[in-house]
């Protein structure tokens, strides 16, 4: 599965793929690292309940209930957390771990979000955007917070 998505993404040259060992963890584009209260992930039309350590995939939508908090570490070391009654869509994430090039686009539909940007934003000031229903944020770095009531 990981191998397949890497092949499709074309993120790793074949040589690296061949040199990679057998035990590459199924890390996805990121992982849920903290979770409190009601947290779920919408994936392919299904709502999955969340456990810490759960890998995330592009197009996942993370939702919290009235008592929910979730913290996410992305593969480029971006850190995101959302507070109660939040909807965060991880619309697109491409990251080349060798060159640190790629793209991270997310969307906060509602709620609160705190971000520490990672290697993508450090590599290129155009690589990371966050949209809200009212605006587009270009993330040059590094720490910021957003509320959409």
């Amino acid at each position, binding site marked *: 599965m990981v191998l397949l998505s890497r092949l499709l993404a074309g993120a790793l040259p074949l*040589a*690296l793929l061949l*040199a*990679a*060992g057998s*035990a*590459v*963890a199924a*890390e996805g584009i990121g*992982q849920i*690292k*903290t979770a*409190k209260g009601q947290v779920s992930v919408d994936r392919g039309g299904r709502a999955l309940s969340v456990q*810490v*350590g759960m890998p995330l995939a592009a197009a996942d939508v993370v939702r919290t209930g009235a008592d929910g*908090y*979730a*913290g*996410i*570490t992305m593969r480029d*070391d971006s*850190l*995101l*957390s*959302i*507070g109660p009654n939040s909807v965060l869509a991880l619309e697109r994430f491409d990251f080349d771990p*060798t060159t640190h090039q790629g793209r991270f686009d997310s969307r906060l539909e509602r709620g*609160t*979000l*705190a971000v*520490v940007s990672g290697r993508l934003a450090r590599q290129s000031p155009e690589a990371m955007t966050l949209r*809200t*229903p*009212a*605006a*587009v*944020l*270009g*993330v*040059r*770095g*590094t*720490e*910021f*917070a*957003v*509320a*959409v*009531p």
Partner: protein
Amino acid sequence: MIRRLASALLALGLAACATPPAPPLATVVLLPDAGGRQTAVTVTQGSQTHVLDQPYAAAHLTAEGLRPFQSSAQEVQAQFGAVIAARPLPPARFTLYFVEGKDELTPDSKLLLEEVFAEIARRPVPDVVAIGHTDSVGTDAVNDPLSRSRAEVVRRALIARGVPADRVAAAGRGKREPAVPTADGVAEPRNRRVEIVVR
């Protein structure tokens, strides 16, 4: 007369209430960088763009457009303190060095391994990636397995100390990604290494 005056005053009052400042559709605040670096976020609403580039520089997005303002540590704590506290720990990175041509850690790096354990222990669901490298002495046929073997040595050491096997990945990159670029065939201790990321 008095009733008329009262209703006129009431109408005035209602008129004043009818144009309150538009409630924000969103609020964005730039926070100080933990490492003290210069940082910025651009905020674009329709044709308006505003750059937040000072700590606690902020903007309200309203139906009537962008309204920049200066927030403060106190305001941020009140509005965002709990969500900031939910952020995961930042990833930690370590580099361990190896004896030439072997998958044996140098004495200094054996000690550093203790710090790696400590960092892993701080995290409820740690995620560790160990990537092995070699210097440029020898062919890929020698260095690819050697780099993998170095990463595996680290992986096994972590598992032996109780880190769950499925939370540690190991891979080798041979001599392709030197920390210190050299000509081919150069024995460079700084390139004989395993880079570890703890997330």
